């Protein structure tokens, strides 16, 4: 009696085991790189870890198909290697001899990928589902782009610098003009006289003499 019950219990899992083969059409290969990810704090891969994996995957299937009661026994694993890679297939909870379609498995994994990764302290790169591309984080584009802000600062400084330089040179020119117009009357007469003489005048020129000359010529 007992043997019959044992055989009956083992039968489903034994039946299911043959469904999992490397290269199965509805199965996926998983590869873990624990030492690369965690280095010294890497944990050893053993039966318990495998149990956790099957449980996490069952969780992912449950989350995706709301209502269907997936169990650890529905996740069948085979072809384990020392690399820590293996194949798995998912059997349907209603009928353990049929497999869940590959696309559904992919979607379920995709949805809960983050949870699966964190259960093992791994990332998309170190816990690979061969054939399921990871959904990368959406790029954050801050608006306005940061380079424009720095550009604005520098451009503003340059613009201010140019305006300051132009304004100061205009003011300097105005100041020079005012100074010149004050000293111009004195300069003009001496300049005219120097040209007439042809030589540089030494001494202070007395203008009253030149007026006298004109009168005497007459």
């Amino acid at each position: 009696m007992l043997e019959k019950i044992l055989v009956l219990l083992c039968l489903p899992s034994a039946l299911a085991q043959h469904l999992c083969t490397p290269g199965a059409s509805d199965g996926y290969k998983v590869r873990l790189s624990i030492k690369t990810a965690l280095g010294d704090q890497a944990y050893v891969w053993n039966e318990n870890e495998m149990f956790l994996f099957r449980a996490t995957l069952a969780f992912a299937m449950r989350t995706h198909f709301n209502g269907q009661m997936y169990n650890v026994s529905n996740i069948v694993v085979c072809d384990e290697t020392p690399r820590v890679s293996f194949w798995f297939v998912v059997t349907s909870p209603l009928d353990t001899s049929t497999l869940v379609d590959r696309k559904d498995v992919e979607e379920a994994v995709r949805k809960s990928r983050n949870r699966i990764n964190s259960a093992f302290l791994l990332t998309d790169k170190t816990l690979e589902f061969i054939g399921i591309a990871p959904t990368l984080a959406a790029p954050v584009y801050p608006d306005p782009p940061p380079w424009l802000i720095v550009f604005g600062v520098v451009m503003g400084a340059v613009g201010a610098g140019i305006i300051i330089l132009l304004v100061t040179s205009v003011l300097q020119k105005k100041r020079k003009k005012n100074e010149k117009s004050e000293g111009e009357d004195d300069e003009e007469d001496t300049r005219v006289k120097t040209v007439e003489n042809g030589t540089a005048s030494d001494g202070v020129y007395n203008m009253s003499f030149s007026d006298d000359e004109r009168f005497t010529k007459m």
Partner: protein
Amino acid sequence: MEKEARPSWDNPLQFVLACVSYAVGLGNVWRFPYLCQMHGGGGFLIPYFIMLILEGIPLFYLELAIGQKMRLGSIGAWTAISPYLGGVGLASVVTSLYLCLYYNVINAWSFWYLFHSFQSVLPWADCPINSNRTGFIEECETATSTQYFFYRQTLDISSSIEENGGIHTGQALCLLLAWGITYMFIVRGVKSTGKVVYFTSTFPYVVLFIYLIRGVTLHGAINGVIYMFTPKMEQLANPTTWINAATQIFFSLGLGFGTLIAFASYNQYNNNFERQAIVVSLINSGTSIFASIVTFAIYGFKATVNYENCLERTRLLLLNTFSLAEDSITVDSLSSWIDRLNTTYPEQFAELTNKLEDCNLERELDTAVEGTGLAFIVYSEAIKNMPLSQLWSVLYFFMLLLLGMGSMLGNVTAIITPLRDFKLVSNMSNELLNGLVCVFCLLLGLGFTTTSGNYWFTMFNDYGANFSLLFIVLIEVISVSYIYGIKRFEKDIEDMLGYRPNWYWKITWAGISPLLLITLFIVYIVNYIQGGTPTYQAWNKELVSCDVKSLVVIS
């Protein structure tokens, strides 16, 4: 009528620093290391220094003497030597104008990279993600992220020079900024330029020094320095080595643009320019060598990083294919494992052969790059792998900016000084004339910010000035030596300095330099004729590589 006294430098140091700032430019950083690598490493220094002594320093001295004596820009100075030679000055101005048009675009790129360095992750470090978020953009995957950033995001390059697109607004803004800063630095002529060169000539050395320390402490940098400085003396037998050394000295000192004449025209009449000419030329060459040490260290680092990544990828490939435990293969035991796996699983291994890369450190080191590719792609790739990459990026592009700006100041001065000598223009205020020149160059320069702009840039860079400069300087040295006469020139120098130039100067001016220049000239023409239709490298978006296209001159 009183004539305004010619403006002058506040002190001779400003003049020296202005010459240094002008001569030490981007070519010292991106052309000399390439030549050094291609022509036998340390051995290249021999032809380089010989050419410096035979050709570089004498021609530099010549231009300074002309400028200081005539106290006019290039057109006025040459017209004073002989009225028929005014065309030489005009040619210099036109060449400087070409250079001004496209050179500031490099500064615009430096600004672009500088501003983009103020981010938590450098934008050229990772590829952007594609639209359905499953991976990276394909163009970026096939090329590298630094190449993608340069060709697609900085330039938005089209696939050939005929395909025009719109102006890249970011580039146009950066070009506007570059011209704004140039204007600010030259707005008052020598008075403002003289103060600016204190900074533009000295700060690049500070950065180079910092980079030297950082560079030689990088992992694998020593590989680069040793590999590239090891002299390969057999290269000295190759005439191209000597031609390239002569050409590099020639272009590096910036002869023939009229800048040196313009700078020297603002000197005091008795300024001792002989000593200054030697000092500036030596500083220029010394900086080239200094910059190459830094560049080779960076190359060594980049090559080592690529090599180790290659080894790591091979290791992963073997682990994954043969499903071995993660710690079984280490990078050191890689080669022995490859042999072992080849013998134990020959069929499986045979499937791998096309995926298995051949990791070779020497081949990584052998990739020689020059020009904008070195400055913007190779260096930014090395920088992204350094810790604290934002800091290094900012420092590096700031240095490139200063080098570029220093040379720009010289080139714009070379245009403005001769223009000011014309009576028509001398009534215009300084600020207005400078502003007009800058706006004119800015508007024309916008053409280089279009999608095919980089190809136009390459055309200008490779063909715009080289031939004309050789010709100009050849005419310069022949006219001074034979038309003006060495005797008269000697007397002028004695008038300025108080003693005559010795036999070394006279021999080089009258004999050696003209012969060297004629040789370069002939070699250039022969190469041009033999080369057939000139070609340029175009970025092919589909293949994501550079293919060579022919430059058909539009007639």
